[in-house]
């Protein structure tokens, strides 16, 4: 790809520098903030030791953005926040201004342009999610579409702060779960072993790499129609899809058999309880574009039960720890089944090694 007329010599600069991207009030009070308040949903007020105040207006975005949309956000920033803006790790945009008079007009303009103002405090925040059919090479679904459908249904919970504590959501297009651990997560669950293309496998895959990738040693070399290939011991296979990432001739995705599962109780913060991983509470939900109503329904049931039953500061997992899994399943109307008993590594850490029983 080198071109002879190339003049520019690459500077391996790493991350873009940040100082010129900080609002002057941020630069002045850098490291000297005293406290913050949330005067209304979607607005933060931070006060510095110097007495300076900066107001933040936070709004949801689709994450899959366009240059047109970003230019609109820049226009808002030029008008109301002195040309500075930032994003949160959950794809919200933030405008920081020292001028309180700008807050209300900015909210009105953002909302009129279709950007919901919210995402602060005890709300359902927007979804950390993956790429899907738009761009990924191993997706079973389109996370962006699932997320749009979910956020339409929890729109008011994004714009208000009526939950016991913050609720983090994630969505992932395969079992790798790039969307991450969250209070409630929607993750693809493969239900069938990979289908192997014996005609092409040896020409597009490194056989030993694919064999080594399997966490349960279910893949073995074989010969099919005179061609070197691989076979899967289907009794051993756990349908994780790890081999597909190493070998595209081991197709794990299936239009009908790649399903959705819903998980709860993931927490990244150290506040109160230690960070925790999620538990599966629903599975075998259909991958049903374009609106995935079955998935949205389960998420809604969990949110309703948590909103009604959670105590102040309890995250979803902490709420379940208090009321117990039995009541969680009763109150959400979901069904505990035999597949939810762990059978993988560390399974015994999830067994009830006590006489503590809930009736």
């Amino acid at each position, binding site marked *: 790809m080198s071109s002879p007329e190339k003049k520019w010599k690459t500077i391996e600069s790493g991350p873009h520098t940040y100082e010129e991207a900080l609002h002057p009030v941020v630069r002045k009070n850098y490291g000297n903030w005293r406290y913050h308040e949330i005067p209304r949903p979607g607005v933060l007020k931070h006060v510095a030791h110097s007495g300076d105040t900066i107001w933040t207006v936070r709004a949801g975005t689709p994450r899959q953005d*366009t240059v047109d949309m970003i230019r609109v956000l820049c226009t808002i920033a030029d008008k109301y926040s002195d040309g500075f803006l930032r994003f949160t*790790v959950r794809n919200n945009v933030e405008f920081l201004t020292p001028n309180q008079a700008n807050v209300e007009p900015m909210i009105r303009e953002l909302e009129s342009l279709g950007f919901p103002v919210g995402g602060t405090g005890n709300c359902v925040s927007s979804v950390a999610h993956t790429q899907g059919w738009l761009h990924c090479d191993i997706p079973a679904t389109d996370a962006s579409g699932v997320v749009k459908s979910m956020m339409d249904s929890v729109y008011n919970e994004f714009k208000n702060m009526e939950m016991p504590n913050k609720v983090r959501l994630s969505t992932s297009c395969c079992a790798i779960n790039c969307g991450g651990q969250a209070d409630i997560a929607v993750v693809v669950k493969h239900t069938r072993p990979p289908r192997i293309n014996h005609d092409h496998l040896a020409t597009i895959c490194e056989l030993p790499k694919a064999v080594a990738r399997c966490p349960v040693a279910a893949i073995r070399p074989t010969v099919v129609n005179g061609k070197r290939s691989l076979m899967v011991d289907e009794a051993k296979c756990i349908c994780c899809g790890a081999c597909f990432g190493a070998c595209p001739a081991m197709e794990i995705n299936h239009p009908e058999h790649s399903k959705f599962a819903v998980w709860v109780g993931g927490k990244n913060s150290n506040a109160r309880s230690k*960070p925790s991983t999620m538990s599966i509470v629903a599975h075998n939900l259909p991958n049903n574009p374009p609106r995935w109503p079955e998935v949205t329904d389960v998420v809604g049931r969990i949110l309703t039960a948590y909103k009604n039953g959670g105590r102040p500061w309890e995250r979803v997992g902490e709420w379940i720890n208090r009321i117990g899994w039995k009541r969680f399943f009763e109150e959400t109307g979901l069904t505990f089944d035999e597949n939810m008993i762990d059978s993988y590594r560390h399974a015994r850490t999830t067994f009830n090694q006590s006489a503590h029983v809930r009736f």
Partner: protein
Amino acid sequence: MEGANKAASNEVNKNSGCCACSGGSCSDAKFLNPTPMLDELEHGPWPSFIAGFKGLAERTKKPMLRGVMDQLEYSYNTKMGYWKGGLVTVDGYGAGIITRYSMIKDKFPEAEQFHTMRIQPAPGLHYNTEMLRNLCDIWEKHGSGIITLHGQTGDIMLQGIEQDKVQECFDELNQQGWDLGGAGAGMRTAVSCIGPGRCENACYDNLKLHLKALKHFVGVLHRPEWNYKLKFKFSGCPNDCTNAIMRSDMAVIGTWKDAIQVDTDEVKAWVAERGLDALVNEVINLCPTKAITMKDGEMHIETRDCVRCMHCLNAMPKALSPGKERGISLLMGGKNTLKVGVNMGSLIVPFMKMESDEDIEAFTDLIEEIIDWWDDNGLDHERIGETIERVGLKDFLEGIGQEIDINHVTRPRDNPYFKAKY
């Protein structure tokens, strides 16, 4: 892929003749082909990415956008994905462009190439509008105009460019201070929370450490050569707003060693406003180590019992602040589900000061040491957390010259199966 191709070949292209307008001969017609499935995602109050894509496509008339929308509609109908990887890069780099070729280019030739450029944003995801407008202008000139803000590892993702435009696009971006992000088995792009930029709980300058550390490792970010990927995330305090402990191999979490700073007047004001019930139910009772008690009518925090979880500081932001002796804890090994299951990062360095340039140098020296150990001990496609578990935490700590500390474990072992050097 087999299933994908089969599904593709069984489907009759409903949009045949779609390109009749591409020469501009029917200017009244819409540039885009019908996408009834995707159109369903234009309804509802949450901002629609489909509406955004359609607006961009109708304005710019970029054939790639039409092809990608057609292929995405096709995915929604057939419930399969149709992108395959490849190898596109820029001069001198071995990573940073995520290559995507359509598996069904015969059906959607306009979507034949749809590569992504990963770009490292400024730490804390801060922008000024000049930077961002500039980025948009360069991207619209060379690519599709679709941008993801941001990917799960923290990159700006410029989605949709053809191979022959990648180098010139990168050259223009690079002249504006942008560099490619990580991919493959090397150092990856990092993430920071807002840190001291706006947060009263930031215990170190995570934006500065992020910038310096990622500049230090910029070579292995662009030219991957390890067993597998390695991700940094920098959170200013144990609230861990970047989700570092779960989603990064190297979670750098701000913390403090001494007592929580208490403003007694603000505590009184808090209780006056919310009542004693709230103090008991929402602060004292929720302390995970019962470090808070009432003494002579006042709240007392026993520092020796405190584990720096952040709850009371979150509940009483005006009254309580982190202590003055601040620094970082380093946790390692966070990763998600693939193969062995999800793994939270484990504490490796309980405390390190992070104030001076020497502190930062000591930090990068330690990371070099850790990477050397991983190079010697890791297996192909094994994240460092998996290597530590397989080889043993004790051997890892010895290998990198870290003194053992009771904070490395939740409790001493519950079995006698070890060989001690008595």
